């Protein structure tokens, strides 16, 4: 009886895993299908990938995505790490204000952040483009970095920092020589996560991008609205592969840094 229940549960869980991965697998598989028009398999080909690399618009979108992701995630990581480190020196009341400022952007619907930034940029007459995209991407990544670093700092014992201060180190020296090296894997994890969030973002970018600042997800959206094509499959596959590599790397860094299994 117990074994039967266990087997049912196992079967159910595997079915859920298949549900999560099958559509992605189908999409990736069809990016190698020779036929353009339908779902019949007519042979393996690399040609859709080759045609992507010949497409100037795709290369431009790729370049936009990568440069925006790099700049915004560096800024978000620096600001976020600094903020998390300073937090414990504030009074309880200020800390709860900061916590609110950190969690609110994570919990409100994405579409709200997108349109409110659009309103802001239009009110201050800032032309939509790469700059507004970078500003928006820093805004939604920053809270995630703060949360990751905060979690790590809360897990970490105070012993080493206290020992350093007992030996006469100033707060700055302790930060520089003790705390920062200890949390560096989490900082890298935060960076990788912001990079992924930026690379993958569609909703917020949709509102704040200009005509000359199309990113990869925005370009894919344009194609998807025109229908299914093997080029979209190939491009989506590339985005999926990038994302998975980044997420796995971020997760490895985070696990290296903490014994507990947290998200």
């Amino acid at each position, binding site marked *: 009886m117990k074994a039967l229940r266990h087997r049912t549960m196992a079967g159910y869980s595997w079915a859920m895993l298949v549900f999560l991965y099958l559509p992605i697998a189908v999409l990736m598989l069809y990016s190698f299908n020779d036929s353009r028009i339908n*779902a019949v398999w007519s042979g393996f080909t690399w040609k859709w990938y080759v045609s992507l690399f010949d497409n100037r618009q795709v290369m431009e979108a790729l370049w936009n995505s990568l440069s925006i992701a790099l700049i915004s995630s560096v800024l978000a990581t620096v600001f976020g790490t600094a903020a998390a480190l300073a937090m414990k020196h*504030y009074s309880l009341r200020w800390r709860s204000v900061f916590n609110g400022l950190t969690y609110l952007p994570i919990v409100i619907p994405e579409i709200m952040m997108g349109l409110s930034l659009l309103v802001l940029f239009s009110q201050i007459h800032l032309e939509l483009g790469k700059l507004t995209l970078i500003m928006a991407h820093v805004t939604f990544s920053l809270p995630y970095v703060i949360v990751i670093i905060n979690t790590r700092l809360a897990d970490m014992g105070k012993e080493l920092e206290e020992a350093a201060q007992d030996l006469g180190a100033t707060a700055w020296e302790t930060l520089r020589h003790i705390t920062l090296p200890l949390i560096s894997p989490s900082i890298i994890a935060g960076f990788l996560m912001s990079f992924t969030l930026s690379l993958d973002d569609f909703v917020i970018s949709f509102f704040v991008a200009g005509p000359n600042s199309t990113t990869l997800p925005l370009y894919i959206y344009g194609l998807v609205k025109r229908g299914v094509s093997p080029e979209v499959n190939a491009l989506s596959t590339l985005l999926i592969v990038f994302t998975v590599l980044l997420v796995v790397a971020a997760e490895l860094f985070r696990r290296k840094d903490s014994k507990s299994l947290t998200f």
Partner: protein
Amino acid sequence: MVAGRRGDAHLKNGKQLKILALPAFVWLGALFVLPMLMITALSFMKRGTYGQVVYEFTLNNYARMIDPLYIQIFFDTFLVAVLTTAISLVCAYPMAYYISRMDRSAQKIWLLLVMIPFWINFLVRSYAWVIILRSQGVINTFLLSTGLIQEPLPLLYNFGSVMVGMVYTLLPFMVLPIYVSLEQLDRRKLEAAYDLGATPWKTFWHVTLPLTKSGVITGSILVFVSSIGMFVVPDVMGGAKSALMGNVIQNQFLSARDWPFGSALSIVLMLLSMVLIYLYYRAVNAAEAKEGTA
């Protein structure tokens, strides 16, 4: 005395470190709080003939929502969100339970497997379903070739396809919190229930489920709030008839150019989310208080 002086020095140094928080919070103040205040103000303003904003106070944008057209959209959005939450819960709970019973290394792998799709772009994941469900898609092509059907089935651009897409994209939000609460579950309470002669079903219903309530609530709130603001899934997988609140808001900002009305709609969306999150805190606190006394 010495300790006191050192303490002061520490405090002073700590004060210097405070400035490290400034860039982040000035940034969030300028690019998160300020824009939110701006759309709140905008929601009480008028729209000019050419789609520009007229700076005059009005409550008209809120009054307009009483129109049956918008009531219907609110209702549809709510219905989709409730169904998505319920279906995700049924899909996620057994899986989370199964994962929590594995050994440590298997757990890590399964959790990563659940997490990965969550990070993959919503748009790409919705598009994957278009490939499968459209009339020349994988399922229809297969069924036509076997001769089971003569005409392609209308699998895409309807209510059902929107539901599939919603559950598919939001499922990981439900699995992870439930897993966390199952993982923290005190096994001795289950053993006690068994020792007292409870059947597995009774144990689950009266012990396991109540003790993992906080995970269920967290997951439900995450799924519900994400689905009421969703616009990608209905946009890609739903037809013209399946517009939800997110699509209407997007339309007010980009095509209809009625920013004040779009702002008012999004304020309502946000208030709804906030109320839910508030109720969530109360419910979780109550659940924890109850567990503390038990």
